[in-house]
């Protein structure tokens, strides 16, 4: 009688499967975000997101650097709002758009191109879990350019203030406004970016499509307001500025001057139409995502 030992180094899994929507969403979000930011990919894939995040941080670092260099009494004399928080978006608007245009398609297009989407939806997760995971994967990195710079600026201002606690007390309402405004901008651009990217399997097409959407809507808004003389509220179709205008109002109030360019206060519609327009954008983008991912498939 002889015996054989089969070493297949395989044991039936005795652990517990923790199948749940939050787990699937966070897992998909983490993997996709890391991939979009270049993790486990060549350095060339990491450069652009890092550079854009640094550009977004640039004004905050510059302001704080000036304060630290001047120091002492001169720093006391500098206005604490050297760069007002609400104005900050005017300085980094381009970086936010570019970041969204580059990072968001990276989270979603390769799945359709390689058809791994079929694998996800046929065994691992539901379409809703998939889309929620991709929203997390796009939104969290986007916060690095919409919330982090203002948060750094705020913390720096506290640090350099002669009376840090006094500064916090005087600027307490800015904390939820900075967080809420940044999240709103990231959320609206995330949905817009995902909706555009869901229409193609090519990252380049999705990036260009997102930028074109912003540019064309901005030009269209200008034409409606100026040429058709429909007034500032016609600029509700300006997708470049819709969430940013709301964030500026949240942070600085309706009197805040967004500077020249796309966020100029003179161009800004009233708050209620702005909120409605943002809500419409969210609903439309959600609808596009639902249409594109409602069916499981192989």
């Amino acid at each position: 009688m002889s015996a054989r030992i089969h070493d297949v180094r395989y044991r039936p899994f005795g652990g517990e499967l923790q199948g749940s929507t939050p787990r699937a969403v966070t897992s998909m979000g983490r993997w996709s975000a890391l991939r979009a930011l270049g993790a486990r990919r060549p350095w060339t894939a990491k450069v652009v997101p890092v550079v854009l995040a640094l550009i977004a941080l640039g004004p905050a670092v510059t302001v704080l650097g000036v304060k630290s260099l001047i120091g002492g009494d001169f720093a006391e004399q500098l206005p604490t709002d050297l760069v007002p928080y609400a104005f900050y978006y005017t300085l980094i608007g381009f970086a936010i758009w570019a970041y969204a245009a580059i990072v968001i398609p990276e989270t979603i297009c390769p799945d359709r191109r390689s058809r791994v989407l079929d694998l996800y939806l046929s065994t691992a997760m539901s379409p809703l879990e998939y889309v929620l995971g991709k929203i997390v994967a796009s939104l969290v990195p986007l916060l690095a350019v919409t919330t982090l710079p203002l948060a750094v600026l705020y913390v720096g201002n506290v640090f350099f203030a002669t009376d840090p606690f006094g500064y916090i007390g005087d600027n307490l309402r800015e904390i939820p406004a900075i967080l809420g405004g940044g999240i709103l901008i990231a959320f609206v651009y995330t949905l817009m970016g995902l909706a555009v990217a869901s229409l193609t399997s090519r990252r380049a097409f999705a990036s260009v499509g997102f930028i074109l959407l912003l540019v064309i809507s901005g030009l269209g808004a200008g034409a409606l307001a100026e040429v058709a003389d429909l007034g500032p509220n016609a600029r509700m179709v300006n997708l470049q500025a819709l969430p940013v205008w709301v964030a500026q109002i949240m942070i600085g109030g309706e009197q805040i001057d967004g500077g020249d360019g796309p966020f100029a206060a003179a161009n800004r519609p009233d708050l209620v139409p702005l909120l409605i327009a943002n809500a419409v954008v969210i609903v439309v983008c959600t609808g596009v995502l639902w249409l594109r991912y409602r069916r499981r498939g192989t």
Partner: protein
Amino acid sequence: MPVSGPPAIEVRGAVRRYGPVVALDGVDLNVDAAATGLLGRNGAGKSTLMKAILGLVRLDQGAVRVLGADTAREGDHVRRRIGYAPEHECLPPELTAADLVRHLAELRGLSRADAIRRASEVLFAVGLEEERSRVIGSFSLGMRQRVKLAQTLVHAPELVILDEPTNGLDPAQRSEMLEVIRRVSRDLGVRILISSHILDDIRRTCDHVVVMRAGRVTLDRPLAARAGEDDSMLIETVTDSAPLLALLAGRGLQVEAAGDLRLRARITGPADRAAIRDAAAESGAGLRRLHPDGPSIEDELLEAIG
């Protein structure tokens, strides 16, 4: 490893139409063997049946239960308990095999630590241990098919469904893949349903076969010969078979003439085959051929495929 638990798949009166085309036409089926082959030509309804089993298509009539659960009502639950490898290419080329399998393990509910361990185990089990850190884009087609198989196993499913797992493989890769699949069902105790249009793939990997044609099940049987099925043998001789007939009858075999050079004998075991061989040598009749009387399993399968 023994296979236990509820029947893997029960299909009752499944009907699915795509416009005027009836993809499933009243399919009734029980799948519970360690490895079952779903055989049929392209367009026979195999893929639709697989999608119905996965709960990915809604049936017009009938019901499918997988591991005791109704796929129409508990689709998500069912899909998490089974592994599935689609026929088409579905692997991201920029990920390593280990990363992909680990990622899918986490999505299916394994903790991060378990996912890392299980990914390593299943990649070893399919013979990709050395290559697990290579990006999938650098893999051959055969290796990519193995990755697809590995990801089906990572969450320890009770049932694995493989759609045309040897599609596009060269003969050597195909042979290796079939061996791996056979090992999965035999050594790892995982029930497998394999769809294929290649008879040999099913014969080499499965214990049971279901043949589909035009949306219907035309054959549903074990692949091993049933008791009594192949016990009637036809003996063809080179010269007159009468002396051989006399010898065999004298040794107690049930034998009769079936023509000038042919005898029909009832075989009950290997000893009878040996007796025929010996009697043929003694009688000098010369054996030309000894084969089952009636259609072989291959004949039956080919007829069912149509």
